[in-house]
């Protein structure tokens, strides 16, 4: 079964259908149904994935532009699979959460939901692509629906934020395009297939240049410090649902790209760049957390926490140990759930009060205890409380990094303390204390909003205690990647008793 094409096809056809439904309510319901069908199909596909089988499964390869060796080639390994699962889980949740979000937009409600489904197809495509050119096409094309979702349905400064987002991404995309073309030319295989290009570039200098082209594009996308300034604007202006997909999935394409393309296609260059990347990542972890503490806008604060978290992911990727890389991959998934929940609850809160400013709240716990409780759980997951899923990934990243780079891991671990400050201080200022006048009479979460959060929180708790099913899928894929980079895990100093 061509699973991956079916997933994309259903999304695209669904989008076309939704675009022509005149009735807004019906359009929303149709979108929800389509996204749930995609989720069901994705789960059905994931169940058939055999973690210890071939690296790439459900592969489809067709010629697209034979003259240049461009293929429509899709397949998944364990890493791509969990990221597609993440996307498929988040879309229906976002649809349900965005029920009233597009009403104040510049364009029609149905367009917003059609764009969501288009975006879903592209998110699946970008993770599934095993042709480098196809990956590039999805990488750039993803910008378009997101640009319109921010620019047409966002907050007061949506145009500025959308254009800034687009320009940054285009700049990165350009660099990557150059590198993609150069990679094709230098490799001389007349093919853009990932497997054909593996190990094709031997010359160290060429590797370095090509690495930079890919890496800067991914660093902007992730975003890694100091390429991050577009994210707070985009996330703060985007409607909450779009912010979830932007930070939860789209940005992961950057860190995913580092793991899949930078490391495997340019192993020597990756090792050459490791000290710099780890330094940038560690700076990002601490810097993002400190700037988050100082934010006055809830959504900007969450965006900065993500910059800190992306530092953890990049550090895990470049530490090049099994634990760190598996942790980084799991981090991408868990961060999607955790930050997704934070953005959505913040969205519910802002929808009620009409302000993004922390100072406009206070004492919400007293009037809307369920909203406050879910916000606390999401916040605790963001500060990686053990028992919630982000702890497992952060722990793996730090442990794995420590195995090779002890000092950066220790500095990064201070992020654990800073996270407690930014989350709990925000929680205190919004939810605790005497109830602010403007918050009096605020309604608690309704049924729809609760159903948005129930699956997210269930996943956060479930994967917090039982991460094994995910790690069993991720670990073999990550080991394959590290083998291609020809690194091995450092052995413990004292493996046996009495040494």
């Amino acid at each position, binding site marked *: 079964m061509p699973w991956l094409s079916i997933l994309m096809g259903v999304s695209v056809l669904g989008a076309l259908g939704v675009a022509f439904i005149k009735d807004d309510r019906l359009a929303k319901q149709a979108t929800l149904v389509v996204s749930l069908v995609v989720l069901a199909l994705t789960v059905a596909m994931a169940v058939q994935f055999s973690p210890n089988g071939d690296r790439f499964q459900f592969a489809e390869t067709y010629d697209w532009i034979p003259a240049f060796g461009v293929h429509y080639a899709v397949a998944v390994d364990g890493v791509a699979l969990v990221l597609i699962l993440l996307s498929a889980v988040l879309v229906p949740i976002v649809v349900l959460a965005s029920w009233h979000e597009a009403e104040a937009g510049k364009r029609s409600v149905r367009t917003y939901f059609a764009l969501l489904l288009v975006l879903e197809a592209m998110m699946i495509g970008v993770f599934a692509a095993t042709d480098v050119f196809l990956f590039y096409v999805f990488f750039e094309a993803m910008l378009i629906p997101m640009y319109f979702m921010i620019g047409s349905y966002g907050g007061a400064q949506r145009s500025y934020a959308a254009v800034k987002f687009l320009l940054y991404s285009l700049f990165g995309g*350009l660099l990557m395009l150059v590198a993609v073309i150069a990679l094709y030319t230098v490799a001389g295989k007349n093919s853009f297939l990932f497997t054909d290009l593996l190990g094709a570039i031997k010359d160290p200098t060429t590797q370095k*240049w090509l690495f930079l082209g890919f890496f800067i594009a991914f660093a902007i996308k992730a975003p890694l410090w100091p390429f991050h300034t577009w994210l707070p604007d985009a996330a703060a202006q985007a409607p909450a649902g779009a912010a979830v997909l932007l930070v939860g999935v789209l940005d992961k394409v950057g860190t995913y790209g580092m793991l899949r393309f930078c490391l495997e296609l340019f192993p020597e260059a990756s090792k050459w760049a490791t000290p710099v990347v780890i330094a940038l990542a560690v700076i990002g972890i601490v810097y993002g957390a400190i700037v988050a503490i*100082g934010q006055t806008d809830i959504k900007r604060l969450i965006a900065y926490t993500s910059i800190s978290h992306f530092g953890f992911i990049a550090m895990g990727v470049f530490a090049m140990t099994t634990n760190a890389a598996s942790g980084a991959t799991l981090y991408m998934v868990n961060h999607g759930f955790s930050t997704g929940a934070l953005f959505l609850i913040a969205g519910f809160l802002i929808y009620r009060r009409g302000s993004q400013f922390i100072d406009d709240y206070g004492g919400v716990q007293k009037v809307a205890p369920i909203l406050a409780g879910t916000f606390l759980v999401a916040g605790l997951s963001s500060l990686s409380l*053990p028992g919630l899923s982000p702890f497992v990934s952060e722990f793996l990243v730090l442990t794995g990094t420590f195995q090779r780079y002890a000092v950066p891991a220790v500095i990064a671990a201070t992020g654990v303390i800073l996270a407690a400050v930014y989350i*709990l201080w925000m929680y205190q200022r919004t939810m605790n204390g005497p109830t602010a006048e403007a918050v009096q009479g605020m309604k608690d979460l309704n049924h729809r909003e609760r159903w948005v959060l129930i699956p997210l929180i269930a996943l956060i708790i479930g994967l917090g205690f039982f991460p094994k099913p995910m790690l069993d899928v991720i670990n073999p894929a990550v080991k394959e990647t590290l083998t291609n980079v020809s690194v091995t895990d450092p052995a413990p100093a004292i493996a046996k*008793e009495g*040494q």
Partner: protein
Amino acid sequence: MEPAEIISHTGGVIGAGWLLIALPLLGAAVLLLGGRRTDKWGHFLGVALAVASFVVAVLAFVQLLGFAPGERRRGVALYEFIPGVANMGLLIDPLSISFALLITGVGSLIHIYSIGYMSHDTDRRRFFGYLNLFVAAMLLLVLADNYVALFIGWEGVGLASYLLIGFWQYKPSAATAAKKAFVVNRVGDFGLLIAIFIMFSTFGSVAFADVFPKAGGASAGTLTAIGLLLLLGACGKSAQLPLQSWLLDAMEGPTPVSALIHAATMVTAGVYLVVRSGAAFFPADSTASLVVTIVGVATLLAGAIIGTAKDDIKKALAGSTMSQIGYMMLAAGLGVAGYAFAIAHLITHGFFKANLFLGAGSVMHGMNDEVDMRKYGGLRSLMPITFVTFLIGYLAIIGFPLLSGYFTKDGIIETAMEHSAILGWLAVIGAGITGFYMSRLVFMTFFGERRWAADAHPHESPSVMTWPLIVLSIGSIGLGGYLILSNRLMVFLGPAVGQPEELPAFHFFSPVGLATLALVALGAAYAWLKYGRAEVPAVAPRGSFLTTFARRDLYGDALNEALFMRPGQWLTRLAVFFDNRGIDGVVNGLAAGIGGTSGRLRRIQTGYVRSYALSIFIGAAVLAGAWFVVGTL
């Protein structure tokens, strides 16, 4: 004698040891997810599950006693948690079962007491949900068979503590205290995390059964690093210097919370961590264990001094808790000779301090939640049960002969004295100060003039609150002697923590013991002169420099503020400014520069998708050209 090997175990109550954790966890889940529907019976469910967990602990204890002493360390595997790194499993041995009995036993009594204490609170169900959550996390902490699972419990109790300190979250002071407790604890947790990283990269495992036997092979530097980092974690959780500042603020929580979490159980987790890791990472006469004893002595004095100056009854008791845990820490730093005394004092302290806190709660319950002892006085006749049980707790903590504290504290002092005279005498002085501040507390509350507020109508608490007091006071009387005489606890704990070659003999009225008693009597007499016989002024007198020093918690908060909070605030502001102007400014400037004028930039920005696509390709072509040019040079 070295600790015994861990034997993997299935079957019986020990095999089902996960029930200990699962039962209260179920309670927490039902009460917190069930919402208002469970308001009517929620507190009963909370109590029932805490008691059920206690029953399981007793049965497991009985099963454990059935094994020969050398076979009493049972490892119970549960499931694969993080493949290749950590599994979920329990270690049920004499040390962990002692904690489990204390946590569920005293925990159940405090649950029962809370039915009465929280009866007027509309959120009583949520309170019981948090209490159940705490018990589950605390049991995971002590029962885990590896450091990662321990860490889950460790931060889990931190969460429960955060939720319960901030239970009356609409009070800004409570919300701030809760956040402070969590953040300060995270500083300690940072240390514990790094210790775990070092263990994993050195030993390739975090399981006790792997790490402890391998520890001997590691370099002295590695072992010291792990020891000191574990101690940092212990200092956070157990409110030891320099991470003590959160505990006094934590008294914002309801009083049963102060009794259970911030006196009897959670704050002793640091002592557990040191004793559990002791044989491997705190060997006798190592740097790490020396630092443990220094921290212990410094905190036992600091806590006692703070206790002398507080007029808030709960804060005086909190200072006392710091101080008593300092004693335990001191003992834990003395190696194998001290472990049993550390744990014995931990257990008896769990009883008499819970007794004292619940007694204080009973007083507050009858006094409209007044906490200022200057507004108490002469309450003994109106609250006879509270008074008598409180008096027993008081006599136990000051080490009155034959009561619990007498045996356990004396054990610590004698062992410390053998180790180092300085440590020993400082511990004796601490005992003298304890005699003073505890007597002051009793005189101000139960004796002297009635200095009540006009609307106070003190009355004895209902029996649901007094019965737990009675049970706890019985423990305060007899438990110490039972554990210490004929070295019962030391022999029982031996297989888990090791035991000295020669068992110590208990001497009634040894010279050191007599000196301690004399100092305690002196302290109590001085308190009588100042607060018993003399009139207690309604407003605290200004006092000397020393009094102010003690009242301000030895300037701990001022120090934190000057060293961390204010620089931190400046750093944050600077970083935000830099981020908005610096990085973003440079990037915006570059973008404008590349695009020519900003007007042209705007025209590009407002175009259609087609022109974006076009610009991608034009830009790409230009860059590709540039690359080839550079490449050929």
